[in-house]
């Protein structure tokens, strides 16, 4: 294969234009397909159309498929809890789906960085990340197929109804997978063939298209989930589907879930490849290998934490939309029987932040310039730990009467107020700011800033930190405890914005201040083995958290297959105990770990080459790792 030795100069604008136009075209075609493909109501027979109070066309639903009303005996029973089977398979599919959708996103970004800087290391790392993703892709498809089979076997009526809702959109989904596979294979296997010059542009375009198709797959699948939670496009009397596919897809929770899952996937993907890097680091035989995987681990952690920071805001939007759609659903999730799950979530997020920060702090040892900032670590650690403790404090605990007397009431006099949202918000936003500070200090550790206005820049940055922290505490305490509910809820937006201001201003000021900075030596590989365990803790906590929140998302429907439309009358139509939930989540996390190890091993194996067996057998059949 001939490759261009010298990159041919073609105008940047033309390249970019071609790239974006092609991507946009195919993206729109895919999405347009998905959005419009469905049987129109007219296809289903003669209809009488009249407007209902919402002004939307309602139909004589007798000729349409109404939502099934099931009895216990209508459900197939294969001797094992159907819910448990679907739970495990679905969660495994979601884990792997998240991974294979996320990795190409940051791989493309890293590839672009490598292309812009001309540094081969970035390109090689991107290629290596894709190797991990490719193996996972097959497993994703396998779990997807198994999930479909399990659903049709165990919940045939529900699936019939959902098929009536989504129609040929599901075939579009399948078709998108053909596209995804083709793009994925060309993108990965054609990496070295499309390495330089114009061909690199083609490769980047392929990467962009891959991500466009992947994101389309994500939003299409999300519509099934959100339809079950907050259905739209149905007739209120019978549950029959009367809207077109766009009305069915675009429910109130669709875009919040799209945003949340898109960002969370990136964080999750970064964390998983970080574990890969940590594993290879610990197994490294040479200093060069250690340096390479240390750098890869740092990059992965950077991606994971960077994507993790905006996640609470996306989650907040999702929860706010749930509340707006149905107060009952919202209250159930956070104020009712599912509320304890959010205490567990607090534990996991605390673990994630501690692990991420710990990795950054130990990583500061790579550069001599970090000694300036080491004093700050203990304060950030204190904020993180205190914040975590506040965040994990519940409001209501089941006391016996004797205990209540000792307390002097229903809630603990001191800890009780820490159990409600204002305190939680203060804690979590201070934790996020602390994490961002760790980031900033790490990025400054290997630089000596030389711009003339650094006095102003640093003063402004520090002031913004101080005022933001004070603002967050003020908003939380004053509006949280001394004003009415509406202002209390509204004040959380102040806290969000304060945190965002710190992050955005921090990034902007730093990028301006780093211009012309003198870089100190960074010794990649000069980091403790202990620090790598933080890179294991991160994906483990992420995985467990993902499974937990997936359970919440499913459980918040209570005894409905499709909320308010199709009742769940199966043997599993109750909310299981926390222990049951913990067991299932632990099970799927362990399963995922097992599969991940397999994937890492395969990725490693593919680079291994056995030496031919020679007659004078000093070391017959010795194996060499590439």
């Amino acid at each position: 294969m001939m490759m261009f030795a010298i990159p041919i100069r073609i105008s940047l604008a033309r390249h970019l234009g071609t790239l974006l136009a092609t991507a946009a075209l195919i993206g729109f075609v895919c999405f347009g397909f998905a959005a419009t493909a469905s049987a129109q109501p007219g296809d289903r027979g003669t209809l009488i159309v009249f407007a209902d109070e919402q002004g939307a066309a309602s139909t004589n639903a007798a000729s349409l498929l109404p939502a099934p009303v099931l009895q216990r005996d209508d459900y197939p029973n294969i001797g094992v809890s159907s819910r448990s089977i679907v739970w495990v398979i679905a969660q495994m599919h979601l884990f792997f789906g998240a991974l294979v959708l996320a990795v190409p996103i940051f791989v493309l970004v890293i590839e672009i960085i490598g292309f812009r800087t001309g540094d081969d290391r970035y390109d090689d790392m991107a290629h290596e990340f894709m190797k991990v993703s490719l193996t996972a892709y097959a497993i994703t498809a396998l779990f997807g197929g198994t999930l479909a089979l399990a659903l049709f076997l165990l919940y045939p009526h529900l699936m019939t109804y959902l098929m009536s809702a989504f129609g040929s959109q599901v075939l579009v989904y399948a078709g998108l997978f053909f596209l995804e596979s083709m793009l994925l294979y060309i993108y990965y296997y054609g990496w070295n063939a499309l390495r330089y010059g114009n061909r690199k542009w083609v490769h980047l375009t392929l990467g962009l298209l891959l991500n466009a198709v992947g994101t389309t797959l994500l939003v299409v699948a999300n519509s099934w989930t959100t339809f079950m939670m907050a259905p739209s496009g149905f007739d209120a009397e019978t549950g029959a589907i009367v809207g077109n596919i766009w009305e069915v897809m675009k429910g109130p929770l669709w875009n919040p879930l799209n945003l949340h899952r898109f960002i969370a996937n990136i964080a999750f993907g970064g964390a998983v490849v970080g574990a890969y890097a940590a594993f290879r680091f610990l197994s490294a035989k040479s200093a060069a290998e250690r340096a390479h995987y240390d750098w890869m681990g740092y990059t992965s952690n950077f991606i994971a934490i960077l994507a993790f920071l905006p996640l609470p805001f996306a989650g907040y939007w999702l929860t706010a939309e749930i509340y707006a759609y149905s107060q009952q659903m919202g209250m159930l999730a956070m104020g009712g029987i599912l509320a304890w799950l959010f205490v567990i979530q607090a534990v996991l997020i605390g673990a994630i932040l501690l692990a991420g920060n710990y990795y950054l702090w130990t990583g500061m040892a790579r550069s001599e310039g970090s000694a300036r900032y080491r004093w700050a670590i203990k304060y950030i650690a204190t904020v993180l730990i205190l914040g975590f403790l506040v965040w994990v404090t519940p409001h209501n605990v089941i006391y016996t009467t004797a205990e209540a007397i000792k307390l002097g009431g229903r809630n603990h006099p001191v800890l009780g107020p820490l159990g409600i949202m204002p305190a939680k918000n203060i804690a979590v936003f201070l934790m996020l700011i602390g994490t961002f500070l760790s980031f900033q200090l790490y990025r400054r550790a290997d630089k000596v800033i030389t711009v003339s206005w650094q006095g102003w820049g640093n003063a402004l940055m520090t002031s913004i930190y101080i005022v933001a922290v004070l603002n967050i505490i003020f908003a939380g305490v004053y509006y949280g405890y001394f004003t009415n509910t509406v202002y209390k809820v509204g004040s959380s937006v102040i806290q969000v914005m304060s945190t965002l201001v710190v992050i955005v201003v921090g990034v902007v000021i730093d990028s301006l201040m780093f211009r012309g900075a003198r870089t100190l030596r960074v010794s990649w590989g000069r980091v403790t083995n202990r620090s790598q365990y933080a890179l294991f803790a991160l994906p483990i906590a992420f995985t467990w958290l993902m499974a937990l929140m997936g359970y919440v998302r499913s459980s918040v429907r209570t005894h409905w297959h499709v909320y308010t439309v199709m009742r769940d009358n199966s043997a599993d139509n109750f909310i299981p105990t926390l222990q049951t939930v913990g067991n299932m989540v632990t099970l799927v996390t362990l399963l995922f770990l097992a599969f991940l190890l397999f994937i890492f091993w395969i990725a490693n194996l593919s680079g291994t080459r056995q030496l031919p067996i020679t007659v004078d057998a000093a070391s017959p059949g010795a194996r060499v790792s590439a």
Partner: protein
Amino acid sequence: MSETTQPKKAGQITTWLVAILVALAAFYLMNHAVMSMQGLPLNWNLTPAQ
């Protein structure tokens, strides 16, 4: 947070004072803007106006 040569003490204090005031003003205005946008106006002293 920097490794420059030390500017004059008075200049430093001015810088910091201005920086703090700018930050305070920015967040004060942001508070008003954010709460107003939600239909929850504030008084000048940041107490609820409703």
